[in-house]
């Protein structure tokens, strides 16, 4: 009894179709990934997108007074939003609002109220303190808490911060305190004294280190 099983030298139709479909799918996916790559434009660090750098002057960020230099005498326990203002290549004033995450929160509390973990050396006389105003949770701008004097509340998911204690999180989902910005007084003006002490939103620690290096390299 011989049972002849046809040995087809050529590939079967089904095999051919499967292989063809497999190839098409692979090519398709690869090219799709390629297209997606171009969907993500390159980031160019321009001066208006730089985080606050040493020597920047703080100016008002609210729409009505935008660009006016903030006077020390204006500050109070009410939050004042500020932009850092630096110089462009020609030496003209340039507000660094190309990155909206650069917006800052300024407070002035009576002496002795600002305590650790706030970095007191980075404040003006332990009275005036500056933070990134961008919530570390999802990047909303943080406001004064309308319930509790001298506290901050994020309107987006009710994150709460304590600006007298280094902006630690006292409620809600934010993972980290707001980053503190070292400042010093120059006459009646406020001037940035260095980079944020911690990584501000949206940077991770390593990204923040890299960004600082990039800024230093570009300004040098």
């Amino acid at each position, binding site marked *: 009894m011989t049972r002849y099983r046809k040995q087809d030298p050529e590939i079967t139709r089904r095999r051919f179709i499967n292989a063809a479909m497999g190839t098409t799918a692979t090519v398709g996916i690869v090219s799709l990934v390629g297209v*997606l*790559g171009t*969907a*993500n*434009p390159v*980031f160019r660090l321009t001066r208006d*997108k730089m985080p606050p750098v040493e020597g920047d002057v703080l100016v008002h*960020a*609210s*729409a009505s007074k935008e660009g006016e230099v903030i006077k020390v005498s204006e500050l109070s326990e009410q939050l004042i*939003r500020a932009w850092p203002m630096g110089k462009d290549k020609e030496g003209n004033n340039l507000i660094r609002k190309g*990155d*909206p*995450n650069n*917006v800052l929160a300024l407070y002035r509390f009576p002496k002795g109220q600002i305590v650790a973990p706030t970095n007191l050396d980075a404040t003006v006389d332990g009275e005036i303190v500056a933070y990134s*105003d961008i919530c570390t*949770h*999802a*990047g*909303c*701008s*943080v*406001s004064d808490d*309308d*319930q*509790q004097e001298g506290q901050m*509340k*994020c*309107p*987006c*998911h*009710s*994150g*709460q911060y304590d600006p007298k204690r280094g902006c630690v*999180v006292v*409620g*809600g*989902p*934010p*993972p*980290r305190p707001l980053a503190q910005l070292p400042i010093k007084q120059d006459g009646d003006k406020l001037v940035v004294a260095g980079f944020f002490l911690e990584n501000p939103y*949206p940077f*991770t620690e390593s*990204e923040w280190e890299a960004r600082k290096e990039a800024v230093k390299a570009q300004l040098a």
Partner: protein
Amino acid sequence: MNQWLDERLHISRLNDKFLRKAFPVHHSFFLGEITLFSLIILIITGIVLALSYEPSNSLVVNSFDPGTADKPNMLPAAYHSVLKLNAMPFGDMLRRVHHWMANIMVAAAVIHMMRIYFTGAFKKPREINWWIGMLLLIFAALTAVTGYILPYDNYSYNTVKVVYGIAASIPWIGTWLAQAAFAGNFPGDGIIPRIYGYHIMLLPGILLALTGAHMLIMIKQKHTQPQYAKRIAYKKIVGVPLLTQQTPIMLMLTLLFAGIVLLFAAFIPVHPSEFFGPPSTTPINNIKPDWYLLWIFGALAIIPSFEFNIFGGIIGSEFTGAILLPTVVLGAMFAVPMLDRSKDNNYYAENPTNHPVRLAIGTAFMALLIVMSVAGYKPDLISANVLTTANANTVLWILIFVVPAVTYFATIGIVRGIRALREADERDSLAHSAAADD
């Protein structure tokens, strides 16, 4: 003319196959139709809106209030075009109709899904359509979200910021993903053109394709039959044909319903762009998403803050609340046809009270989503002194567990009661009919 068309297009075959499709007669079967009509009206109003909208966030001079030559009043082009749209005759009205229609579409879709769930209509052979329906729901929500970013006023701006933050919170790939999706670091120069592309091309395309598949499968599989069909003609399709009986009902329903939405739009303003103003650094107090996303928002409001680092990826409260949790919830909904199956094809809509556990799980699930949505009002509850900052999270967390549990057992109890009554009724009528026979 009929004949002329028929010779070319074989209308009579189409007629036999599709136009005579039987529609069950029951009001709950209109919910899917309402969803479909809303989609159609959304597309029409959307096209008209798109004619006047300028998809760009580059700054232009505000034509209503140009400022001075050396200090011009600049606005994002998209926002500016919305102001112009509002100033057009019926322009604001058009936006409102579009907005309310979107809300009603999601609402109708959700109630439609509830009908499917509670009557077991997702069972074999209709599992695929349940899944397609889930995808429709998800893509409808995404379309809506991209839609309320487009006016690019301060509200939209804050919304898209949060959406960007959520996308970026995915461990490992988040930053890349958010940048690819939103055209670079927030808010890139191309963010509005990108979102516009999503909102008017990509997502509606997906919605239409899915809707087409949903309906074709429905036509192929036929509607589930309501219970009365079993009594009238067992294993036969009972209903009225699309042409000419169902069509006038549908038309009437559409008109009635479009009328209601127009009334809504005439009296209830939506998203007042002028009020919110152009994007700025001033946050908006008590910003909230639309009602169907409120539960995710609520979860974010009460989740405590934390952050883990796993292999260089950061898992934080934001990712957990806004991505992980909805994935679990939607996953559970996707799994419904796998958890509650039938061996044979299911032809008849089941009476919910005959399936108390399914009913109770469904109501408990809804209760959970409602409590989570209430949690979204946490700041308002605190300002109204219902809760305090200190106890809000604890109270809301307790409610999240207690309310669904209570709902579950209450439903089971009520169903038991209903069945006991029904059985008593049957015994009664049996006894009486027995007596009458004597």
